């Protein structure tokens, strides 16, 4: 399935995300002197953004099942990827472990 949004709305979306992201990036760099540091309370919240957001992206991929029940190949691949990610903290190695396991299950076992 691909998107049914047209090009103009997609361009607009990209530009809005880009502008907001740039404003975040440039914020303190541009305002240094007037605004020297993130207020401590905000800083405390920001510290948890990566873990919370990334888990929100990852968990549903592995723990939400379709009508056919859990996908064994994806769960096995996810397990292998977690193990490699934990040991190596390397994106490429994690990708290879996960995709490799998925392909072994799909093409050789199942």
């Amino acid at each position, binding site marked *: 399935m691909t998107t049914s949004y047209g090009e103009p709305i997609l361009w607009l979306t990209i530009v809005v995300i880009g502008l907001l992201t740039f404003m975040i990036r440039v914020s303190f760099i541009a305002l240094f002197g007037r605004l020297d540091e993130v207020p401590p309370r905000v800083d405390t919240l920001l510290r948890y953004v990566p873990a919370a957001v990334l888990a929100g992206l990852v968990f549903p991929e592995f723990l939400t099942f379709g009508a056919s029940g859990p996908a064994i190949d994806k769960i096995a691949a996810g397990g292998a990827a977690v193990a490699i990610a934990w040991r190596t903290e390397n994106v490429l190695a994690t990708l290879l472990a996960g*995709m490799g396991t998925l392909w072994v299950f799909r093409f050789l076992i199942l």
Partner: protein
Amino acid sequence: MDSVALRRGIKDVFPLLLGVLPFALVVGVAASNAGLDLELAIGMSVIVFAGASQLAALELIRTDAPILVVIVTAVIINLRMFMYSASIAPYFRDFAAKWKAGLAYILTDQAYALSIARFETEEEIDRLSYYVGVAVPLWIGWQIMTVAGIVLGARVPDAWGIDFAVPLVFLALLVPAVEDRATMAAALVGGGIAVLGAGLPLNLGLPVGASTGIIAGALAERVMA
């Protein structure tokens, strides 16, 4: 530009490119899967230039989530860059405004992490040159690999499940983000609520889960302190 500092930046960023380039490839594949054409996909990589938010936005675009949800989700993911901006700002304070804007545009997780480590330990280094040496190769590599990913995504047969690379990249980023019990609480609550909210209308599961997880992390920090 100080060519010694510039070269050191390039040398330091090289090993990190090994992790970033496959990530960009996956972004290209995801753009292709979402139905974006080459121009839109390149436009996104140039205009947004922030991988995790691009991947999340592409997944939401693919499933026709409301545009506002796409934007809010992408921006939440990029909020962390407030920390980078605040932390690196003192080192950039003497640069001209136009330089600051350019340097901010190419600010990424990797450019921040390498530069701040170097700036803290070596006060005499030419900061502008070093940062450019780190950040520009990341930018160039990102654009090239996005294009490669679009081409690849359009050619690899569906049976290979190449779209599964997207959650794998998120997983590879999640594991090092869980550093202690408070970040673990943020991840468990954020991920758990996102799973429970998977059926929520408007694809709100992710923004709701993420926001709850952030608060859970901050509360856990307070409880355990």
